[in-house]
């Protein structure tokens, strides 16, 4: 028995985004179970958790703590603000940071040590545009949170829709704290869209948007990106029929890795898994693979060696399929389109 590998998590565990923190932690826990069961590593993995509160300051303090006190070589984190604050600290301390939740396009180039295992949001918009055209949904109204994510989605639509013969008939930005959407509904109705696209990174906000728009007589098609895959949203009656994109993650697939993840999740947490969870599951799995390679080669496992290993291998077989990292260590994988139906999500393309 040698020294254990320290892996940190830096998720919001309190405040309005704490639902994500719980989800991500569960995913990491499941991955750890599987890694241990498979005896992938010689030394055990030890998890250390810090609360980022989804704020930059929380992220900076937590990251420093993980990097310098806990001496983690590998940290899983999420949220754009947190990522931005943590990235320089992690970079300075040579800690590999895995982002599986934040999808702002400005995350791509934060630091060489900053790895995006989730396809960034602009890629999701690119994937939904043809589908909208195919369905004849020409007039699109966008409700977006005014942050880099929302802005980039807005730009993607404004540029991409006309090419497909559609128009962005209205783009309404909201602050991240907004909870009342009755008035927005009035404006959305006013522009007579065929489809309404929601771009908010906050799950509770998305569910409120969907409910209040439906309540206020908006019957048009709802569309969103991977955030729509949260269990609380899928379960909500007002989400019925909502379309969302996400990494290709087919829960019904027979591919053994994904099957193991889905079944493991169902037995352990008595719930349906979501894409975000898969990202963080894969995040820890990726660590195990990298560390396994290093252990075999007799190289010590540090942030530096892990990153070198990642950039050397580039392509990994993770649950849900093959993932390739580009020169900025940002992943790309296939995007799938799903629909909420009867409180479950089903793949439609």
């Amino acid at each position, binding site marked *: 028995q040698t020294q254990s590998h320290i892996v940190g998590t830096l998720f919001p565990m309190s*405040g309005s985004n704490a639902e994500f923190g719980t989800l991500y932690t*569960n995913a990491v826990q499941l991955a750890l179970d599987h890694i241990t069961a498979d005896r992938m590593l010689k030394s055990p993995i030890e998890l250390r958790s810090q609360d980022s509160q989804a704020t930059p300051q929380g992220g900076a303090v937590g990251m420093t703590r993980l990097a310098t006190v806990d001496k983690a070589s590998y940290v899983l984190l999420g949220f754009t603000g947190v990522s*931005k604050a943590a990235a320089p600290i992690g970079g300075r301390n040579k800690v590999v940071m895995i982002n599986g939740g934040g999808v702002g396009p400005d995350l791509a180039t934060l630091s060489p040590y900053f790895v995006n295992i989730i396809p960034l949001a602009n890629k999701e918009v690119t994937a939904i545009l043809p589908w909208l055209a195919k369905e004849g949904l020409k007039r699109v109204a966008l409700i977006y949170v005014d942050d880099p994510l929302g802005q980039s989605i807005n730009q993607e639509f404004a540029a991409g829709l006309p090419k497909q013969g559609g128009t962005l008939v209205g783009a309404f930005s909201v602050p991240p704290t907004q909870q009342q959407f009755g008035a927005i509904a009035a404006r959305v109705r006013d522009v007579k869209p065929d489809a309404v696209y929601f771009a908010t990174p906050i799950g509770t906000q998305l569910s409120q948007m969907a409910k209040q728009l439906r309540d206020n007589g908006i019957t048009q098609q709802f569309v969103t990106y991977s955030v729509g895959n949260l269990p609380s949203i899928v379960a909500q009656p007002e989400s019925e029929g909502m379309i969302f994109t996400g990494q290709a993650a087919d829960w019904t697939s027979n591919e053994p890795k994904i099957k193991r993840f889905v079944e493991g999740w169902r037995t352990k947490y008595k719930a349906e898994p979501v894409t975000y969870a898969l990202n963080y599951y894969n995040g820890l799995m990726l660590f195990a693979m990298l560390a396994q390679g290093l252990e075999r080669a007799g190289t010590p496992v540090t942030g530096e060696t892990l990153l070198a290993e990642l950039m050397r291998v580039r392509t990994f077989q993770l649950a849900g399929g093959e993932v390739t990292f580009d020169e900025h260590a940002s992943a790309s994988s296939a995007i799938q389109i799903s629909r909420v139906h009867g409180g479950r999500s089903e793949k439609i393309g």
Partner: protein
Amino acid sequence: MTAYLLNLATLATIFGILAASLNVLIGYAGIFSVAHAVFFGVGAYAGAQVALNLVPDVLLASLAGGLLSGLLSLCLALPALRVRGEYFVAASLGLQMLAVTVFSEAHSLTGGHGGLVGIPPASLLGIDVSSPWRFLAVCVGALTLSLVSIAILMRGGFGRGLMAIRDSESAAEALGKNVPALKTIAVAIGCSLAGVAGTLFAFQLAFINVESFTLEQSVLLMAMVIIGGAGTLLGPLVGTLLLLLLPAVLSFIPFIPATEIGTVQQLVYGLAMTLLMIFRPAGLAAPSTGRR
């Protein structure tokens, strides 16, 4: 471990400056501002812009941050000259909410919700002070300077003038105090110091966005001052240490389940605030009241 402690210590120092500057308003001048984070923010953005676009010199950036905050503090002085007590609290609240909106909408100046990224490492008059130890030293220097100047000012006639206004504005006027001028200066001093703290914060984090300058931050700052003891020199520091380090200490407690750490922290935090106020209403650093 050292780096972690250094980081915490630096943050504590920065918040120490903030709390001490807020204390000038709350404790001495009786101006109950819940908009202090606004001036913290203004300083941070101004300092960060200087560092990003001109030179990453702490002194220059702090000067810019402090000056801009001091200028904009007129927004706070204006209502302070007209109303007191609850009305002023409400006014500063309004200012805080407006400022948050402006911070998140003025993309070209503040980067919006995305914030300003990649603030370069700090230097001081050409010397690199970006290493944790050196930057802590800079911050401690700034804190010491602030505390000393606050102490000197508040022990002297200026401080007495402010406290007189705090206790009875009309009596202070009747004794020849120029109330509007004294109040405006006090607000300007408090807010410029907050701006300096903001600049240091921007350098320390290398990334800032509106989330650090919200109402919660303002209330937290206020709690630091009140819990430590408003109107005392060391009270704000005590309050800062307590409120800033409490979460850090709690995170070392092993038996709290990882998923609940945040909630438990906040719970203890809130409980500590309430209980401290019930049992030490005058603040921790205040002398236990003798007569009366």
